[in-house]
């Protein structure tokens, strides 16, 4: 029996044992420190600490470490609604006095080049800039304080320009708006700076569309407001604003609409038309009514904008179907006569935008990724939620692939504002945008 045991054990051992010549992974590369003596110094930090105060401290600490002796003049601050917005903004202002703060709340997560940050309670990201070559002016306004959102937008851009201390129109405006007022706000801004200045950003988001979103402008926290940053610089700023969906053959004209409700397309109930175009994807909702937010992420409508022979599309996210009149509520204003088209896509397409849009931002000004100082990435929360959960962390990786190791800050918004050259600033849904700053002179 001993012999048998040895044979069995020997056979098993020889069978089980295989020599490996496996390689190894080297330790993660050390964090690159900002180059000294650069014209734009950037510090970026993040935290998902459950304690708001500690979270801000951690983020600010990273920022300071990266900035070294440089004092920032401007900071972009995004936080999820899990944190008390007043507390975190107050903490930022406290730790970074004399720094203009622009930002707002983000849906579920924030992102930096270090990753996609989702905290147990919340997460926040802070990007601070110190540069004598860029003038930042942060201005904000509460829509409730003005007769209209348009007036609020106008007031906010005036404040931002004033804060920048520069004359003339800014080179670019960053915007964090409020859901439902975007077009009006843009109109107010454009009233001041015209249609040629790109306004890029998104509407502040919350975690479950319950209106908890906030806008941050310096030490002000708005629930229904706007925060703007007017940027003046001689350096090139690259940007891109795109939805990235595929076009379809299904298109029609809005024949009856009011605000953000489309009643009819080609004189037919809008929801029925939309259901036909999608091949019956929302049949259940057509019968019972309700939200189509999730399904519509892969089947958005797009406003067709024609300008000088070029046809642009501005995607609009269908929100819900009214079972009574089969009208279709969307996340952007629609007017009678607007031509609309069905777009389609999948999560892969939406994820790839994290690569393509930053790349296009660089291409917009013929920039190389090595020259990027920092970036601001805005991504529609709806599309982010449409991504499989384990695919979401790839977004910052793709952004890094496009812009290199430059720091960036990202937020997830409920509607995105951007610029169509020759058309002006628009509000769309399911869109993403990237703004990259460089030291390259214009």
């Amino acid at each position, binding site marked *: 029996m001993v012999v048998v045991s040895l044979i*069995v054990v020997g056979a098993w051992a020889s069978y089980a044992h295989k020599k490996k010549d496996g390689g190894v992974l*080297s330790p993660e*590369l050390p964090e690159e420190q900002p180059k000294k003596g650069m014209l734009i110094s950037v510090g970026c930090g993040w935290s998902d600490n459950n304690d708001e105060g500690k979270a801000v401290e951690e983020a600010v600490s990273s920022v300071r470490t990266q900035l070294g002796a440089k004092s920032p003049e401007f900071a972009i601050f995004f936080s999820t609604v899990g944190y008390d917005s007043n507390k975190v903004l107050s903490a930022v202002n406290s730790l970074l006095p004399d720094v203009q703060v622009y930002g707002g709340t983000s849906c579920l997560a924030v992102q930096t080049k270090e990753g996609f940050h989702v905290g147990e309670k919340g997460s926040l990201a802070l990007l601070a800039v110190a540069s004598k070559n860029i003038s930042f002016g942060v201005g904000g306004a509460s829509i409730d304080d003005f007769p209209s959102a348009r007036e609020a937008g106008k007031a906010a851009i005036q404040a931002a320009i004033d804060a920048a201390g520069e004359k003339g129109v800014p080179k670019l405006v960053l915007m964090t708006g409020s859901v439902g007022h975007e077009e009006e706000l843009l109109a107010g801004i454009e009233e001041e700076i015209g249609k040629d200045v790109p306004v890029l950003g998104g509407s502040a988001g919350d975690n479950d569309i319950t209106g908890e979103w906030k806008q941050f402008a310096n030490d002000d926290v708005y629930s229904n407001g706007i925060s703007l940053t007017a940027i003046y610089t001689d350096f090139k700023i690259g940007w891109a604003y795109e939805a990235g969906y595929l076009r379809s053959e299904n298109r029609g004209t809005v024949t009856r609409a009011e605000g953000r409700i489309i009643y009819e397309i080609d004189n037919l109930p809008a929801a029925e038309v939309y259901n036909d175009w999608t091949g019956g994807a929302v049949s259940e909702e057509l019968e019972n009514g309700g939200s189509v937010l999730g399904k519509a992420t892969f089947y958005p409508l797009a406003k067709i904008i024609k300008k000088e022979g070029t046809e642009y599309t501005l995607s609009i996210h269908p929100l819900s179907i009214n079972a009574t009149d089969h009208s279709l509520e969307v996340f952007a204003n629609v007017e009678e006569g607007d031509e609309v088209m069905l777009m389609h896509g999948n999560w892969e397409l939406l994820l790839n935008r994290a690569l393509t849009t930053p790349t296009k931002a660089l291409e917009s000004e013929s920039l190389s990724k090595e020259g990027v100082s920092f970036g601001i990435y805005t991504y529609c929360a709806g599309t982010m939620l449409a991504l499989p959960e384990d695919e979401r962390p790839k977004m910052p*990786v793709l952004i890094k692939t496009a812009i290199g190791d430059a720091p960036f800050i990202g937020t997830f918004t409920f509607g995105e504002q951007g610029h169509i050259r020759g058309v002006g600033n628009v509000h769309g849904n399911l869109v993403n945008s990237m703004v990259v700053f460089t030291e390259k002179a214009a």
Partner: protein
Amino acid sequence: MRAKKEVSRRSRSILVKLILAMMLLSIISVAIILSVALNEQRQIIESNLIEENKRVTEVAARSIEAGYITQSLPFRTLSQINASEEVLFWWIVNPEGKIYLADNPAMCGKRVSSLPIEAGKTVVKDYVYGGEDVKLLIQPLAIGEPGKVEALCIGISLKLVREAANKMVLNGMLYFFAIAGLACLLSLFLARRFTEPITQLVVETKAISRGEFDHRVAIKTGDEIEGLGDSFNEMAQRVKSAIEKERAARRETENIMNTMINTLILVGPDGRIVKTNKATLDLLGYSVAELIGMPFDKIIGPRDKEGGEIELEKLIKEAADSVVNFETTYIAKDGREIPVNFSASVMRDEKGKLQGLVCDAGDITERKKAEEERQKYMAELERFNRLAVGREMVVIELKQEVNRLSARLDEKPPYDLSFVDATILKKIKDSDRRVY
């Protein structure tokens, strides 16, 4: 009973040894076969796994290359690949070995050492990932800067192989024990079949050794053992015949011995009587029991040991001599000395080793008496002869004298004395001297 037990114990021992040997052989054979089969099977599974995933890797690589052009990486394809239980991870690695895209973003920025990237060829490398042995499939990608090859690396878990192998081993063990059990039963059966004739042979051999020569074995195995059984039966028959012949010969010998008039005593090398015949018993008055084992000295030779003593000790020690027709005496149980005509010869075995003396003696009491009578008679006769012969001699002498005188007278001798030779003349003179 004891002998039967002994036979049973020995046959059991053979049976046990045979069973153990067969079982061991079966188990070792099964173990080796299973081990080899399992190893082969594992390699096949592993090879299939690698080949299958090589194709997957190639497809993914082509998708990445296509996506690189359109800036649309095939995340769904990669996700589907990653969803496979076999695939642990995927990395896209730049020419410096730095991971810049991975299923797990935490891996981005890390470097992979010793990464063999060969253009146009999928390389398979053993790798350790998270403490687990994996196969790393390295598929070059035709993207990036010209002349610098990036690669798609896909980590293939060998967990399924291990699980399959473990399952196979488990099944193999079940088979092993089942076959081993079967082998045991078969071994028991075969060993019993094999040892049964041997056991029978042992039992019958024992019986024959006890002198029961009528025992025979009935083995019908159709093999050498049956031949052995036949040989055994033949041998038993021959032994029986030989023994019967020997017995007959012995009986005949004993009959001859007992019929002999002369006494016959077989003396062992130690000088003690080993065997004797009826004539000896009758002559000496001893019973067989009394005589067998008795020192031969006790019955041989004159009591006074003077004259007629045979040098028996010398005869035995030297074992090189023999005595023929030597007159001596045997001493009977009642003390009588019986004259015998004794002859003895040394008996040796085929190797020349002394086995004893064969002593043959004839009772010569009557002859002795007759001889004594004859000697008396002869003495009488001689005395008478001497008287008669003397007178005749005187007559012959006188006639000779007459013839001599006649010769002196030149006369013809009147008496023919030609029959008288020198011997007679000498006897005449001698008898003349004895008589006169």
